[in-house]
């Protein structure tokens, strides 16, 4: 895996030392909150509803066991023994004390991690396919590109005060597991007619209050041109992006207001200007980074033990049917560890669980872990013969829930239980929905279903791209939940459509249950997923299920 140079280490340590001084000056009263706030945000420190919150980047979701153990150590030493994994491949600590944060950042620096650019109007943590380097459908591991982008964007002097935050996602596979079309820049690796790898460049996607699907700016960008081209995009945005209105400041609005043609013209012109300045140093660097992301040394051994365990143990079989994905190497599997045990908080892992996952990665997983944007943890390279042992250890740690991609594998933002911006709670609703489907024992029959919930219009929980999206709102001082249907966050990205009036906190779980059991009677056969059924039938039948006629009569 990629390791950092002395230069990187010094850079991060210097930043921590600087911040330590700033915290001390805030505590002794020589800095006001107004002066301190931008400084703390530059170091990932927020002030939330009940406490501070520290957001730590997990670049392109990749962790090694030592890093995962350090996250556990930080959770124990300075937080409440757990961390919250997010859709942006970050981990958030919900209870740090102001005076401890510099020590937490130093502890992160000990394992090559930091919280730089996890906040602010700058290029944020670059995210990538969580199956990178392992997926059977991949052209190339996108993480080298993500790392190159990270080095280029970190402390980039031109891009520290963009009109708004800026998010880049990369995938090297045909199937989009990185929601590239909902990012400011989405990069999808493709091959041209000559078979060379390059990128389809998508701009102007985003969720939030004005959700938009990104548009293709370039069908094919040679790999070697990536940095100058991205630099051209961000610099055009930096000039053109609106600074008069925070809600119109994202590049999606810039693209929308200026048109794709104009963006193309400006980006290409800027690209021509700056391309010559990239004298090949970036390509030398990329080659070094690529070497560091060399695939693991996979071995060839018998998978008989795996087959036997599947036959002998139905619980293992169910877990392996649901939580494994195809690996490119013969005899290997990608393991998705569900951080969504029924009734638990989506994305939360205790320090003990983090250590178990670190141990498993070390013992059976070639020393690699990934955080998925769906708030789960991945062991990307596990030999099938080791799966029974991995499963047994996960079970012991309460991490063996067989629900990846199913109704209870819900993405939920922190909502009003933690977030100062929230208008309603998300977590309890997610917990209740998951518990309900567990009681009904129909999750596996329902099949692939993505339920996503956000506690306000910022859409951190990705509700716009959920097959079923739930948005928590404040309606006259009462929590109210609006449903959207038909969203999709894959290569066929679609923004969900609002179903109708919202539901109260008491009504929302029964409404979701009605919707999903209703789908079971509407689908053509067991292979037709909820999303496919919705696409075939449209909103009406689902609306009729959600709002039965007698309710309408009563409301009138």
């Amino acid at each position, binding site marked *: 895996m990629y390791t950092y140079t002395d230069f990187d280490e010094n850079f991060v340590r210097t930043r921590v030392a600087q911040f330590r001084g700033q915290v001390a000056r805030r505590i002794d009263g020589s800095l006001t909150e107004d002066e301190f706030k931008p400084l703390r945000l530059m170091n990932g420190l927020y002030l939330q*509803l*009940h406490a501070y919150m520290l957001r730590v980047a997990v670049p392109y979701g990749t962790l090694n066991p030592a890093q995962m153990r350090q996250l556990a150590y930080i959770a124990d030493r300075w937080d*409440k023994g757990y961390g919250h994994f997010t859709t942006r491949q970050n981990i958030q600590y919900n209870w740090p*004390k102001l005076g401890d944060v510099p020590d937490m950042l130093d502890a992160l620096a000990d394992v090559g991690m930091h919280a730089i650019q996890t906040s602010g109007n700058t290029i944020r943590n670059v995210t990538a396919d969580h199956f990178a380097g392992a997926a059977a459908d991949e052209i190339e591991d996108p993480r080298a590109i993500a790392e190159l982008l990270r080095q280029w964007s970190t402390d980039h002097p031109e891009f520290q005060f963009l009109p708004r935050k800026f998010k880049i996602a990369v995938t090297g596979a045909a199937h989009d597991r990185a929601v590239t079309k909902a990012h400011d820049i989405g990069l999808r690796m493709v091959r041209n007619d000559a078979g060379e790898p390059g990128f389809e460049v998508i701009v102007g996607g985003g969720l939030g209050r004005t959700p938009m699907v990104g548009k293709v700016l370039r069908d094919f960008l040679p790999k070697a041109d990536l940095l100058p081209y991205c630099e051209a995009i961000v610099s055009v945005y930096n000039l053109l992006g609106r600074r008069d209105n925070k809600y119109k400041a994202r590049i999606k609005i810039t693209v929308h207001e200026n048109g794709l043609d104009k963006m193309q013209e400006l980006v290409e012109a800027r690209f021509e200007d700056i391309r010559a300045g990239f004298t090949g140093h970036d390509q030398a660097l990329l080659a070094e980074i690529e070497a560091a992301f060399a695939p693991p040394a996979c071995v060839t051994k018998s998978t008989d033990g795996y087959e036997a365990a599947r036959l002998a143990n139905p619980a293992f079989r169910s877990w392996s049917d649901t939580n494994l994905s195809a690996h490119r190497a013969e005899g290997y599997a990608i393991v998705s560890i569900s951080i969504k045990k029924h009734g638990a908080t989506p994305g939360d892992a205790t320090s003990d669980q983090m250590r178990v996952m670190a141990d498993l990665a070390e013992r059976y997983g070639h020393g690699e872990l990934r955080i998925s944007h769906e708030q789960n943890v991945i062991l990307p390279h596990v030999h099938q013969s080791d799966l029974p042992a991995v499963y047994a250890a996960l079970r012991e740690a309460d991490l063996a829930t067989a629900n990846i991609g199913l109704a209870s594998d819900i993405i939920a933002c922190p909502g009003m239980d933690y977030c100062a911006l929230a208008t309603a*709670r998300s977590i309890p609703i997610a917990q209740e929905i998951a518990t309900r489907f567990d009681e009904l024992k129909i999750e596996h029959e329902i099949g692939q279903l993505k339920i996503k919930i956000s506690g306000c219009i910022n859409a951190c929980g990705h509700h716009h791209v959920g097959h079923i999206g739930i948005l928590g709102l404040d309606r006259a001082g009462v929590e109210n939940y609006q449903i959207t249907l038909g969203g999709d966050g894959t290569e066929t990205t679609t923004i969900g459509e609002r179903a109708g009036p919202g539901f109260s906190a008491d009504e929302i779980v029964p409404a979701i249950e009605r919707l999903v059991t209703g789908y079971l009677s509407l689908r053509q056969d067991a292979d037709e997923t909820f999303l496919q059924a919705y696409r075939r039938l449209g909103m009406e039948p689902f609306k009729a299920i959600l709002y039965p006629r007698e309710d309408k009569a009563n409301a009138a």
Partner: protein
Amino acid sequence: MPRHFTPKVVTANALLEGDAVWLTEDNTWTRDIREAELLTDEAHADLRLLEGQAQVHMIAGAYLADAKATTDGPAPTHFREAFRTRGPSNYAHGKQVDL
């Protein structure tokens, strides 16, 4: 017609811990909303907010939040403020265990 003024409390986050605190009559910050000063006059509320905000070495982000009088002291009227007096609903963390 003058706007109807609903009673308020001055609230903020404690500087060191980050948890919710409320301003008392004698200018200290309490972790228990029931000990807060209930402000029923708009001009006085504005003044108290400024006085609270000035204590930058103690708190961050002071604002006025709606509250009502009860026999047990001020209580929140909006669910957001009610959560701040308790803590999150998924774990017994925050004020529900601290107090």
